[in-house]
Each structure stands twice: as structure tokens, then as C-alpha cells.
């Protein structure tokens, strides 16, 4: 689109980019300014994509605001920083240069953060400096002369507290002033002349920052004490890893013990719904579709909402508190032992929630081989979609007792499954780095941010988002798979004189029985085989599918009976354990493969991922099944 095609009454969109070092509050500011809901958290590298939002300035300019990944310099070291550089230098296709850049910095760390501003100023483009986190700076008694800083830099300077609306009014005012005075030249100029600064140029920037601060800082803030003191315990070589383990352990215990009551409510509600539906409707295909196909399947999955929310509550709190980088610090030695970048721990930890954002978060890893290894092992971290499968099988087969004075056995088994996933991931990384992905390693340079109290609204909104995502998945992918599955499981009907339930003779039954020889060595029956096929699309689908399969193959009581009870009576312990082992490794998620394809730009690596994970899953299930049988779990 050229400027000539634009007429006066369709004014060109004004584009303003938020640029700054990681974790200085760009996304928080973006959310406040645009009313957006992008993810914020207290660790560097949260935003890894370019996000845009609309805002209207007090004067009435309509502005497209861009939130960008944080970057310590314009010399991009990692793929996420490259996105920022390309926007700032106008290298993005179509859009050209942003009309103005708002450089966001952490006022408590200006000594390090102003260097990026100087780099941006070199470009000679409209620029505003926002000193964010002013609340914390003031709390520490820090005083900065805004006038001096502004005069020295030759650009407008404002102070902000990103979460508070009134804190950003000044910024909006400055944006208006800037837009009104300078007719925008965006889209015409380029910054082709820009060159990566040499080491000595960076040193010169540092000296300039020091000079500026000497002029502008009236009173230096007191150094942060709380973070130091906490870190003395949290990063302690012995206590630190123990604390990390305890937190993870507590998390899985909580997933089991706190969720019991809300699960009962949901269970009761779904059972009532099922009964009401079967009582009101006459026997028909429609009734079968609704009661056996849809309600039975969905009841099997929706019940896990409380557990998923508890897991996310822990993750969100740890993220906002600032613990993620500490966990990465503690795990770094282990990670470097298997040839991984310590930075890889954060994407891996987010993969506990879901591998898709985890794989995207690898953009913060600079080295391509490190990044690829992390992408390939991310699906081994137990994501929240595995929770329904784990919990269903654990509830059905592991007695709800306590061991060693009060530790729930079920939570312990769950913890064990997570641990197997982590160990498997580390081993896989080590093997990959020694074979297909050989190469030298990348430096770890990671800022450890100050601890902050989690913001309750932020956490609640985060939970709400997760609940919505979960429900939406049930309403879309799971529901549609269930309808197809019901169809395949119902037609063709049973022949005359059939001895097995009708589903046995259906298309799904034929597929399941076809797969049975392949899956029999690992202890799976044809019902599991039927569930695994749609389970390739998304893991929870398998639980829903089992619900449908057993509802269709069971007698009338079995329909209203909880799925766990049905399974406990139909499967051997060895089969259940083998299925758990299968789920630790199996690549049962299309979205993950698609994300891997997006991030690696080829089908080669997702294909490789699928094959190696499948092989791992099969071997793990085989070994588990055989060992369990040998130990008498048949």
C-alpha cells in the first residue's frame, strides 16, 4: 500500500511501539493503555510476539499501539529480540517505521536500562522515555529530576506506574504533543544505516549513561533488601533445591486435596443432567447421541476444571512473585549437564501449563541448537491437558491412602509422573545434544528480577482466562470429536445374535480391533485403542472418548456410574500403569506439533518429534506393562 492511495478522509493509522528492556512493564503499560489482556509476569521474556492494540489519545488521535518483546539492545541476540529490532528499524514488511517509540525503562534500574534508550535515540526518530515502576523507586527514596533528564536527552520524559491509569495520563499527553508537532514521516524513511554497536560503542553508551545519571539523579534509592534476604534462602545451594522440590510437591498435593469438593459438585451436576436427560427422552438415536455421546464424554472432562485451575494458580503466583528465574538458576547446573541453556528452564516450566506457549517462549533462547533442543523436549513436560488422564487413572487405581505420616499416595504418584516426564526430558535433551543436535553451547545471562507481591486481579484474570480456554476446548474440539466418535461407534449396528456390545461391531470397534494387535503387547484393549485415536488431536479428548466408549458399551447402570469406577472394574492395574506411562511420553497433541512447525519453519522437526516421542511412549508402556505383570499387577 503506498501513501498515494490514501485520501484525506482515511487518515493513516498512527503506530506507536513500546520498546524497552525485558521485565520493565511494557505489557502492563500496554494493557492499561489499550484495555488489553496480554500476559504479564515477573520474569524477563514473557512477551515473545508483536501484539497490537488500539487506543485513543485525549486529543482524539486514534493510535495503534505495539507491544514488543523486551530487549537489552537493538543488536538482537534471540528470535524474540529480532522481532523488536525489526519493528524499530522498520524492517517489518508493509508497515514501515512506527511513528514514534515509547522507550519504557525500570526506574529502579536506570543505570542499566538507559543504554537502550541511547541506542534508540541514535536512530533520530520521535521518542518518548517512560520511567516506569516509579512507585517502587519512590518507595526506596529515589529522586530523579525529570526536567534535567529531558533536557539532557532532548526528548520528553514521563514517569509512570504501569498498572494505574492516572500514572499514564502524562504519557498520553506527551504522545499527543509529539503527534501534533511532528508531521509523521513514517513509511518514508528507513534506518538502513543502522549498524550493530561494537563492544567499544557499548562501553561509550555506558559512560554516557553514567554521566546522565550523575546530572539527573538527585537522590539514589536505597538498595533492595527484601529480595537479597529472600535470595539468601531461596538460592542457597542446599536449601534452594529443597524449596523448589517442596513447592512442586505441594503443588501436586494441592491439585488432589483441594479439588475434591468442587469436583464433587461438578460430578453431581453432570450426573443429574445425565439422569434428567435419560428420564425425559424416549429411547432413540438422538438420546444416545446426547446421553452416551455428548454428556458422558463431556462429564468425563469438565470435572477436571478445578484441578487445572489449582495448577494454574500455583504457576501464576510463582510467575508473578518472581520465582521462575530463581528456579532456572537452581536448575541451571542440571540443564548444562545435558547441554541445555539455563534459560531453557523457563519455557520448560511454562510447558507444565501447556507446551504451546512453552514452545513459543523458547524464542528468548539465543542459540538455535539450544532452542531447537528445548522445543523438542517441551512436550515431555507434563502439560495440564494430561491432568484429566492422570487423575482419572490415579483415582481409579491408586488407593486414597497416606504414606510416611500424612503424604497422600495419590499426590505422590502424580508427582512421580511429573518427575518421570522431567527426567525423560533431560535425558532426551542429553541424547539429542550428543547425536542429532551437536554443537557448542550458549552463554547464560539472565536477570533475576526483584520479588514482587502477586497482583490479585492479575492472578484472578489469569485463572479466568484459563477456565475460558478449557471450556472453549470442550465446546469446540472435544465436542466435535465426540459427535464424530459417537457416529463411528454407533454405526453400523450390531448384527443378529451379537454377543458383544454394539460398539464392538461399529466402525470405531473395527478400528479399535484393528489396532489391538499392535497395542496388546503394551496391555491396551480395543476400547483404549478407540480412545487413543481421537486422543491424538488433544490429550483430554481421550478421557472424553473413554467416557463415550464405555457409556456405549456398558449397561444402563454403567452410564451413570463414574468413569473411574467403570475402569477400575474393567482394567488390570498393569494396563492402567502402562497407559499412564504411555501418556507421560506420547505426542498426543496436534497444537504442539503445529507450534513446533511454526517455530522451526519446517515439518522436519515436528515429524522427528512425533516419531521419537511415539517410540518412547511405546517402549515406556511396554516396559511398565511387563514389569507390572511380572510383579503381579495382572
Amino acid at each position: 500500500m503506498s501513501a498515494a492511495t490514501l485520501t484525506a478522509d482515511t487518515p493513516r493509522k498512527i503506530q506507536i511501539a513500546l520498546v524497552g528492556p525485558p521485565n520493565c512493564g511494557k505489557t502492563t503499560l500496554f494493557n492499561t493503555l489499550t484495555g488489553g489482556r496480554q500476559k504479564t509476569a515477573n520474569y524477563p521474556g514473557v512477551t515473545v510476539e508483536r501484539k497490537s492494540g488500539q487506543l485513543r489519545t485525549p486529543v482524539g488521535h486514534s493510535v495503534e499501539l505495539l507491544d514488543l518483546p523486551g530487549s537489552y539492545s537493538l543488536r538482537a541476540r534471540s528470535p524474540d529480540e529480532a522481532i523488536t529490532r525489526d519493528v524499530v528499524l522498520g524492517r517489518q514488511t508493509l508497515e514501515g517505521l512506527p511513528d514514534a517509540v515509547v522507550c519504557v525503562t525500570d526506574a529502579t534500574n536506570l543505570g542499566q536500562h538507559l543504554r537502550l534508550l541511547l541506542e534508540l535515540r541514535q536512530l533520530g526518530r520521535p521518542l518518548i522515555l517512560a520511567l516506569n515502576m516509579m512507585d517502587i523507586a519512590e518507595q526506596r527514596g529515589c529522586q530523579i529530576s525529570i526536567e534535567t533528564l529531558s533536557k539532557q536527552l532532548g526528548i520528553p520524559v514521563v514517569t509512570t506506574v504501569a498498572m494505574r491509569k492516572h500514572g499514564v495520563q502524562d504519557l498520553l499527553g506527551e504522545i499527543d504533543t509529539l503527534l501534533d508537532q511532528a508531521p509523521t514521516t513514517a513509511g518514508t524513511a528507513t534506518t538502513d544505516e543502522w549498524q550493530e554497536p561494537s563492544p567499544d560503542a557499548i562501553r561509550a553508551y555506558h559512560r554516557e549513561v553514567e554521566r546522565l545519571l550523575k546530572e539527573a539523579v538527585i537522590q539514589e534509592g536505597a538498595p533492595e533488601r527484601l529480595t537479597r534476604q529472600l535470595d539468601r534462602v531461596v538460592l542457597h545451594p542446599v536449601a534452594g533445591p529443597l524449596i523448589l522440590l517442596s513447592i512442586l510437591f505441594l503443588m501436586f498435593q494441592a491439585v488432589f486435596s483441594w479439588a475434591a469438593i468442587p469436583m464433587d459438585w461438578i460430578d453431581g451436576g453432570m450426573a443429574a443432567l445425565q439422569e434428567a436427560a435419560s428420564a425425559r427422552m424416549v429411547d432413540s438415536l438422538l438420546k444416545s447421541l446426547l446421553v452416551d455421546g455428548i454428556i458422558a464424554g463431556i462429564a468425563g472432562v469438565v470435572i477436571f476444571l478445578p484441578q487445572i485451575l489449582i495448577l494454574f494458580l500455583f504457576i501464576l503466583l510463582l510467575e508473578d512473585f518472581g520465582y521462575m528465574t530463581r528456579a532456572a538458576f537452581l536448575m541451571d547446573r542440571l540443564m548444562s549437564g545435558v547441554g541445555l541453556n539455563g534459560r531453557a528452564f523457563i519455557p520448560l516450566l511454562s510447558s507444565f501449563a501447556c507446551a504451546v506457549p512453552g514452545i513459543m517462549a523458547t524464542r528468548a533462547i539465543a542459540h538455535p541448537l539450544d532452542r531447537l533442543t528445548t522445543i523438542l523436549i517441551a512436550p515431555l513436560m507434563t502439560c495440564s491437558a494430561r491432568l484429566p488422564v492422570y487423575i482419572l487413572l490415579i483415582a481409579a487405581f491408586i488407593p486414597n491412602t497416606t504414606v510416611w505420616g500424612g503424604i497422600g499416595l495419590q499426590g505422590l504418584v502424580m508427582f512421580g509422573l511429573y518427575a518421570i516426564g522431567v527426567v525423560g526430558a533431560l535425558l532426551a535433551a542429553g541424547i539429542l545434544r550428543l547425536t542429532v543436535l551437536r554443537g557448542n553451547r550458549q552463554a547464560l545471562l539472565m536477570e533475576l528480577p526483584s520479588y514482587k507481591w502477586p497482583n490479585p486481579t492479575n492472578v484472578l484474570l489469569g485463572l479466568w482466562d484459563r477456565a475460558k480456554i478449557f471450556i472453549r476446548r470442550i465446546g469446540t474440539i472435544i465436542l466435535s470429536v465426540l459427535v464424530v466418535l459417537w457416529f463411528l461407534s454407533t454405526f453400523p449396528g450390531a448384527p443378529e445374535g451379537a454377543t458383544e456390545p454394539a460398539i464392538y461391531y461399529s466402525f470405531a470397534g473395527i478400528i479399535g480391533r484393528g489396532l489391538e494387535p499392535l497395542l496388546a503387547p503394551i496391555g491396551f484393549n480395543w476400547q483404549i485403542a478407540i480412545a487413543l485415536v481421537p486422543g491424538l488431536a488433544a490429550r483430554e479428548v481421550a478421557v472424553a472418548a473413554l467416557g463415550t466408549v464405555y457409556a456405549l458399551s456398558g449397561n444402563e447402570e454403567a452410564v451413570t456410574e463414574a468413569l473411574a469406577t467403570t475402569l477400575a472394574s474393567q482394567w488390570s492395574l498393569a494396563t492402567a500403569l502402562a497407559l499412564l506411562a504411555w501418556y507421560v511420553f506420547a505426542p498426543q497433541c496436534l497444537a504442539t506439533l503445529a507450534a513446533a512447525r511454526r517455530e522451526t519453519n519446517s515439518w522436519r522437526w515436528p515429524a522427528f518429534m512425533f516419531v521419537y516421542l511415539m517410540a518412547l511412549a511405546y517402549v515406556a508402556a511396554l516396559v511398565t506393562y511387563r514389569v507390572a505383570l511380572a510383579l503381579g499387577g495382572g
Partner: protein
Amino acid sequence: MNVYTEQERQALEVGCLVKAGLTQPLGQMPQGSVGRILAVSGMGDHDVERGLLEMGFVEGACVEVLHYGLLGRDPLAVRINQSMTVALRQVEANIVLVGPLLDPTGPGTLSSQEQNG
């Protein structure tokens, strides 16, 4: 009368400190100790050098080693100029040469020497 340029004077100073055995690589400093960065040189590897510089490891900055990892004292957490804490590995830390905090009023030094063992 000053016959040396600023850079030459600095190089001489570093030389004296090295001779006097007062310098050590960042990764070798005792936990809890403070010092001033004398040199950061990637030995030809500009990427590592720039990476360190961009995270604040620049000549003249004051550093304090806060924590070491359990195995092989790796990684380590370093506080720079009392404002930012950075985690890095031994390999990179040993590129940074640290000397004593000669000038206690220099930029970013501990205003109140709130140190303990």
C-alpha cells in the same frame, strides 16, 4: 603534567593490580565479596563480550558475588552496581576480571558498606 592518555593510565593501573595479585576472575571471587570490574574481554569473541557488556558487566562497574550453585560453584548470581542481579555461568564469569574496590566513592559503590560474611 600528565604524559599518559586516560586509556594508558587505566591499562597501567590494571597492570599494577595484576602484578600485585589483587585481581581475580569474577567466577573465582569468594561468595559475598565485592570488587570493581577492570576488564571484560571476550578474547576475540565479540558476541560474548557484547553480551556481558549489555548486561552491565562493564569496566568500572561494582560487582558483588551473591550466590554460587551447588556443583562446581556454577552458575553464580552477581549484583551489579547495587541495582541489578544477573545469573551467569563460570565460563562467562571468568572473562570478567575484577580488582579491589579502590575508590569507595566511585559510581555505583556501596554507600553504606552493608556487608557480612
